[in-house]
């Protein structure tokens, strides 16, 4: 009885008793969720336009953040370092397309997947050679990101919102909105979506695979940089971040590999659910540290019932 009480009654009683704390938990979850969603978005874009499951997306986040901080350490002013990092991400996109994707066109998916694992390991090694492996601090204040916090008092309680987190959420939202506008309203965006539907037909109307691939990898790079800055501000910049980046995998399982909406909602859901589970169930019942595996178990459960994910794009098939 005691255990049932702890699972089904006590947590909810706690939530009602301290709504301000619940809001704090949800807010923290939302912030990590937004970042998961961003990483997943990078995956989805690349997957949709090239059917490549880009294992390297997570490490691109670390690589982008590391490049930014590394350049700044070398004495480059913060905003110029951002511009240079973007240039590096563009160079990365071009070289990946040239060296890895183009020669492997038409090969089975698994080979391309292996190639992205190769890219992952290469980026880890390359990043360490150039910038070193120790933990670095993100150049938050140099970038002009506010570092204070708001203290609110809902229901007579206490709710602390870090300025960094608010900035991260706002920037992420702006990024997602502009990406959606880009995909739906512009010529290039349409081409990306068309390519996702039918490669051959896209070729036949003169859409160049190479251009589009460079473009989506570059967009993935931009997303990686934004995520890297946001995450680096909270946790420092080192390759330990990659563990967090892999959280995008369960997000994809949950949201579906092809759906942008799925990536966003999946990210937010995983972020919030894992935080709530940790605080209300994990810590009291299992001794904590559930955040590292909860998302994966949740994804597994979803897969059992909906293999295409919650928002997997319906395959339109006429009968």
């Amino acid at each position, binding site marked *: 009885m005691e255990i049932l009480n702890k699972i089904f009654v006590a947590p909810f009683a706690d939530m009602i008793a301290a709504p301000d704390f619940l809001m704090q938990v949800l807010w923290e979850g939302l912030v990590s969720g937004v970042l998961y969603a961003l990483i997943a978005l990078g995956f989805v874009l690349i997957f949709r336009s090239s059917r490549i499951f880009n294992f390297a997306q997570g490490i691109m986040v670390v690589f982008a953040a590391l490049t930014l901080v590394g350049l700044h350490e070398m004495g480059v002013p913060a905003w110029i370092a951002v511009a240079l990092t973007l240039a590096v991400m563009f160079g990365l996109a071009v070289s990946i397309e040239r060296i890895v994707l183009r020669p492997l*066109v*038409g090969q089975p998916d698994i080979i391309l997947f292996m190639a992205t694992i190769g890219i992952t390991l290469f980026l880890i090694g390359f990043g360490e050679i150039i910038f070193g492996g120790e933990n670095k601090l993100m150049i938050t204040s140099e970038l002009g990101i506010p570092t204070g916090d708001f203290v609110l008092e809902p229901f007579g309680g206490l709710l602390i919102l870090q300025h960094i987190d608010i900035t991260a959420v706002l920037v992420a939202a702006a990024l997602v909105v502009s990406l959606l506008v880009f995909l739906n309203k512009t*010529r290039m965006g*349409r*081409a990306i*979506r*068309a390519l*996702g*539907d*039918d*490669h*051959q*037909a*896209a*070729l*036949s*109307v*003169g*859409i*160049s695979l190479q251009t589009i691939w460079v473009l989506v990898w570059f967009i993935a790079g931009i997303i990686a940089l934004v995520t890297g800055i946001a995450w680096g501000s909270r946790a420092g910049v080192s390759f330990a971040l990659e563990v967090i980046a892999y959280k995008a995998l369960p997000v994809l399982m949950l949201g579906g590999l092809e759906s942008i909406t799925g990536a966003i909602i999946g990210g937010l859901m995983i972020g919030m659910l894992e935080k709530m589970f940790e605080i209300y169930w994990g810590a009291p019942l299992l001794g904590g540290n559930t955040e590292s595996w909860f998302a994966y178990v949740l994804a597994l459960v979803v897969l059992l019932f909906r293999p295409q994910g919650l928002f997997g*794009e319906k395959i*339109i098939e*006429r009968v």
Partner: protein
Amino acid sequence: MLDSAPDVTAETLLEVNNIEVIYNHVILVLKGVSLSVPKCGITALLGGNGAGKTTTLKAISNLLHSERGEVTKGSVKYKGEVVQDLDPAKLVKKGVIQVMEGRHCFGHLTVEENLLTGAYTRGDGKAAIEADLEMVYNYFPRLRERRRSQAGYTSGGEQQMCAIGRALMSRPETILLDEPSMGLAPQLVEQIFEIVKAVNEGEGVSFLLAEQNTNVALRFAHYGYILESGRVVMDGPAAELRENPDVKEFYLGMGDDGRKSFRDVRSYRRRKRWLS
């Protein structure tokens, strides 16, 4: 409708010279195909399954590479210029676009977005593209009604229209049209061919048309080539092909039983020669 005789002296746009195509380095599909497409004409490429019609079209539009096929001999010239190693995008810019067999619309894009992707290679501004969208809707009024639906949910006929309309949006000079009648009711086939004819006459677009439906194709085309296992076995003005007894027998189903292809004719004649 039948014999709006083409100006045969018209300039030749596309010239395919004795091409050989091999898939995967081993499978020989085309064994020396030659043909030419005149400006403003409708040229039909006829033949049964596996004759090499689609391969010929893909060899011209350079879509073979993504299927591991390559042109190993011969040449493809467009307006006198060798085009066989250009990538498809460059060819579209030169005015040659293919409408693939089986439509291949972008299923999750709306009909209008599908049409707009056709204008991807163009750089002549929004107004011109809008005007052409209007032009396409005038040829295909049905598409105007369905402009907001996802192409994946439209009917086969609508998808075929969408695919042809999408190609038109690139402002082409030549459309390579692969099997437009596939899986469509006879009435719709007729309608699609009427539109092809209208586009040909109204916009001056030349067509190279691969088709199994010999009957319909020869009624609308000006000139025809007949392919059999990777070779051109016969060619001539459509009106003549229609009257040719062998074509009638093998492709229009109007002859006696027994002989089913040109190969049989040849052996038959050879045997006769031995006997005499």
